């Protein structure tokens, strides 16, 4: 045991040292998922805490029992009772089938409710009417189209605070996943499909957005800035973008769709209507009259 103890003590010391170094270095870093900026992410944070607490009811006893039993019934402790043929006890077995069952029943109920409440396709309850933004994942950048305002942006998306944002998401690329960790929930972006995601930011702020599903060599550079603005700032931002004379039509789209990574932010003042449907329907050939495929009814 002695060599083992020395090795283990040394390694434990190394581990403790590393953890303290870590705590020191990561001071002031934004742990986005534990610092939610909208109701969806907040609900998810609460859910994480609830689930962990429920599971600790089993996990803590396992750790304690494992340590105590291993210590007490070590072979050298000949004073401890020894019952070599004791191999079942119905009462105690019923207990440990039942306790996890009850915990899973509780967590299962919570799961059923929250899965419906947090369904990315479900529109948010709000008195404010939502802003619709169409998202296209391209190799390797994000295109945002605002059908209500006739503008489009690349790798930058702005929306008003405290207003539900209704994202329609597709891809003209391999599968990606659209994710703004500070606001919660992600959803896949897939070619020929249109998925939905509803988010809301409580306050003005700037958040990181990225793809969470490997889509090829430019993947790491497939990032965008998401900005929630006050209503006035948003309106003036929209007005400013509309002043830009650049036109975004299918020709411009096809150029943009060429592979590139770490693409700088771009704005288009005049987006051709129906562009999103054009992208989704590209993959409907040869039946290009087919309607847009929406995954399930909302």
């Amino acid at each position, binding site marked *: 045991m002695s060599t083992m103890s020395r090795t283990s003590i040394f390694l434990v010391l190394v581990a403790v040292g590393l953890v303290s170094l870590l705590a020191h270095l990561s001071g002031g870093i934004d742990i986005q998922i534990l610092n939610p900026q909208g109701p969806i992410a907040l609900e998810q944070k609460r859910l994480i805490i609830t689930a962990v607490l429920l599971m600790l009811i089993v996990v803590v006893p396992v750790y304690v029992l494992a340590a105590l039993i291993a210590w007490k019934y070590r072979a050298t402790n000949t004073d401890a009772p020894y019952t070599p043929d004791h191999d079942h006890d119905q009462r105690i*077995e019923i207990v440990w089938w039942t306790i996890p069952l009850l915990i899973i029943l509780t967590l299962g109920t919570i799961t059923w409710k929250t899965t419906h409440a947090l369904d990315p396709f479900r529109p948010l309850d709000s008195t404010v009417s939502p802003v619709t933004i169409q998202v296209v994942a391209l190799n390797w950048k994000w295109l945002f189209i605002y059908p209500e305002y006739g503008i489009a942006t690349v790798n930058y998306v702005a929306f008003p605070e405290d207003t539900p944002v209704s994202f329609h998401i597709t891809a003209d690329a391999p599968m990606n996943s659209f994710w703004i960790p500070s606001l919660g929930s992600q959803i896949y972006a897939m070619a020929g499909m249109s998925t939905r995601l509803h988010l809301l930011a409580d306050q003005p702020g700037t958040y990181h957005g990225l793809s969470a599903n490997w889509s090829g060599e430019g993947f790491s550079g497939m990032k965008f800035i998401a900005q929630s603005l006050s209503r006035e700032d948003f309106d003036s931002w929209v007005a400013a973008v509309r002043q830009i004379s650049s036109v975004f039509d299918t020709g411009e789209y096809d150029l943009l769709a060429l592979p590139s990574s770490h693409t700088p932010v771009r704005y288009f003042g005049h987006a051709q209507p129906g562009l999103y449907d054009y992208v989704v329907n590209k993959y409907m050939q040869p039946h290009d009259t087919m309607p847009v495929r929406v995954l399930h009814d909302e």
Partner: protein
Amino acid sequence: MSFAALPPNAIVLSAFLFMIALAGLIIGALFYYKRWRWLWDEWLTSLDAKKIGVMYIIVGFVMLVRGAIDAALMRGQQAVAAGDSLGYLSPEHFGQIFTAHGVIMIFFVAMPLMFGLFNLVVPMQIGARDVAFPFLNSLSFWLFAAAAVLMNISLVYGEFASIGWLGYPPLSELEYSPGVGVDYYIWILQIAGLGSLFSAINFLVTILKMRAPGMTLMRMPMFEWTTLASVVLVIVIFPILTATLAMLSLDRLLGMHFFTSDFGGNAMMYVNLIWAWGHPEVYVLILPAFGAFSEIVPTFAKKRLFGYSSMVAASIVICFLSFVVWLHHFFTMGAGANVNAFFGIATMVIAIPTGVKVFNWLATMYRGRITFTTPMYWFLGFVGTFTLGGMTGVMMAVPGIDFQMHNSLFLVAHFHNMVIGGVVFGYLAALSFWFPKIFGFTLDEKWGIRAFWCWLIGFFVAFMPLYLLGFMGATRRLEHYDASTGWQPLFIVAGIGVVIIALGIVFQAVQLVVSIIKRHEYADTTGDPWDGRTLEWSIPSPAPFYNFAIIPAVHGRDAFWEMKQSDPIVQARPAQEYVDIELPCNTPVGVYIGACAFVFGFAIVWHMWWLALLGFLGVVGLLIARSFDENTEYILPAAEIARLDAAYTQKTI
């Protein structure tokens, strides 16, 4: 096909040179010591399950080293590639490395270690002399070996896929991956998958039909039950993998549209199918680890396994439930809330039987007499890590949480928590437990325990930062990130963790060398070094090629323990008559078929149709030729067994 396919990359080049040097060294040694004949007769053409098992394990460990180097390259890259620094790996190369890491660790490390263990343990534990189909066993191994060679060829000739270990289309389609990498991926998995399927059928029949008289199902050791559950899963799921990859290859070879974005193809179908294989696959791997712990804990606690029927029930429930949870890998693909909630809850339910297993192991230790050998260290380390992994797993089973954590490094930490803490710890425990039965000496405890501490602490240092990184919004598979994210210190710590784990692997190599040097000191002269409970400990170590001179009669669970209790002197050697036994003759056909499968795989990757056809016809022709071979068995006469057994017994006493 040309020399241009050899990549000019420094890392790959050094790997290539290393492989050449290693191969040269081995070939040189074989010539120098004149061991070719021995290698061919005693090992490569052998149908002895124990030898096939050892070969599986050797290949598994060699591939573990390669998979670990891939891991170190990735973590090294992520530790340095923040902000202005781009690191040393190109995005394309990084993609190939993480794809290869996943494929290698599952198909070429976990699977061979598992089948290796089955080969070593299953026949002996049920009182059988061999598996049900010895030739099929050799064939399975050689198909697997052909795939392993193809995997290493892909490192130096051409490229490997850069699509993630499950190869989601449309990225894996021709449109986005026109190179040979995906073809290597497909055909490597097809060949290895066939080997796994055949092997699983073999062990299913072995367990159901070859048990010693008196060993009813409910008297089988737990390891047999979990093996049974595991191979049933393999038989059900591997055809799904084969069919899915066949459809993908039809897309790529013949321009079909199963999974393409256009012309009615549907990538979501692939994602469902691949996970209908992929999720049960992780239970295929973990169940035998549970079984191994169910043998180790009673042995070292010197106490009967607690709640045997509960354990059997739990294994079967886990086996069944693993089929109805695949969708939890893609809650974010857009299924409705009812579907997501169903699969989420089904996933959590698996935690119940798994939790029961943990409690039963603890109850087995309760009021026992526990000796802390290396396998017990692995067991306690397993309880500590696997429980944590189970907790993060249940978290991710809640769709509401998964929407946030999906594909983040939190997920990566979770599944390594299960695979390292569960599968790896379980198999390493099992290998040190059963090692003396195969080789006749125990492994060095001191180095074993040192390796354990490195693995355990290395695991926590490497993966706890990843949980935190997940909370910080870091996704998996990033080869570069902004300095402003604040992720770098955590990636550096994770990299240090990988170094500690690597040290653990080195210590295991040292353990093996030290044990070989001290093999006389560590010799297992009794055949029962741990005061074991099951039949394999009733025969001498190393186990004779025929396993049992006389097939034992079983009267209860823990068959050997009961024999020792009732008659400590006679033990497992009842005064019975020896009878002639039939044993399979060695055959090189498995090696030849493996070689033809390799030729076929390589040729089809490079679209050399004539050669592919030749390889395929070779496989078919050899199978037909083999089926006409009438002389596949020989008789070991009773007198010879009596002589061998007497020699063994003398050595033992």
